C-alpha cells in the first residue's frame, strides 16, 4: 500500500487530493505508477495526459520519473511550483 497525493491543478483534474493504492509488483518506477494510475479513471487519464509537465516526489523528496517506487510510502504529483 502507498499513499498517492495530488496538488494544485493535478488535484483538480483528478478530483482527489489523496488516495491509497496497492499497485502490482510490476510497477517499479514513477513512470510505471503514472501509467497504472492513468488507467484508473478518465479523470486520472486526463490529469496525466501531459506527463512531461507533472513533477513527482517520493516520500517528500523531488525525484525524476525514472525513480523507483519500490519502497515508497508516499508519492506526490503536482505541477511546477510557483511559491515565493
Amino acid at each position, binding site marked *: 500500500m502507498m499513499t498517492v*497525493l495530488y*496538488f*494544485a*491543478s493535478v488535484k483538480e483534474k483528478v478530483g482527489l487530493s489523496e488516495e491509497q493504492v496497492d499497485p502490482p509488483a510490476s510497477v517499479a518506477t514513477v513512470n510505471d505508477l503514472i501509467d497504472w494510475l492513468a488507467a484508473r479513471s478518465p479523470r486520472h487519464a486526463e490529469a496525466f495526459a501531459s506527463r512531461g509537465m507533472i513533477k513527482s*516526489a517520493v516520500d*517528500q*523528496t*523531488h525525484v525524476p520519473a525514472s525513480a523507483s517506487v519500490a519502497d515508497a510510502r508516499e508519492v*506526490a504529483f*503536482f*505541477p*511546477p*511550483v*510557483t*511559491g*515565493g
Partner: protein
Amino acid sequence: MTTAPSNVRIQSTPFDPGAELNAFLKETPHAGGIAVFIGQMRDFKGPDRATGAPVSAMALEHYPGMAEKELGALIDEARGRWKLDNVRVIHRSGDLAPSDPIVFVAAASAHRVDALEACTFLIDWLKTKAPFWKKETTGTGAAWVDATGADDVRAARWDKA
C-alpha cells in the same frame, strides 16, 4: 553563532515583516550584515502591470511536511555554501489579499557578501523547489499561476559545476 529558535515557518495567517525583521536582528546581534527579501502579493497578473489583468485575491496551496522539509534543506544548503550566523524563511499559505506579504527570507553573516548571496540563493531556489502553488482570482475567475522558465534559469545559476 546564534541558533534560531525556528528557522522555517509556514503559516496561514498574515505576518508582520517589520516585526519579523526586528526579531531576527535581536537573535543575531553580532552579525555585521543582514540581507532580507520580502515577496508581496501583486495586484496584477503576469510579468507586467500594463498588460496584466487585475488580481483581487490569491490562494496559496502547499504540500504540508514536504514544504517544511524543502525549506529546511535549502537552509542547510545555504549554510554549507556561506558562513551564516542565522537564517530564516517564513512563507504564507491559504488566502491572501493584494499587498499581503507572501515570503520573508533573511540571512545574517559577519560579512555582507555572504548574507546577500545566501539571501538571493534562498529565494531563487525556493521559487523552483519549495512545493507551493499560487492560484489567482481575476475578473474571469480563479486560475493557477504558471511557472516561468525565467525562474528555472535563475535557479540554475546556483547549480554546482
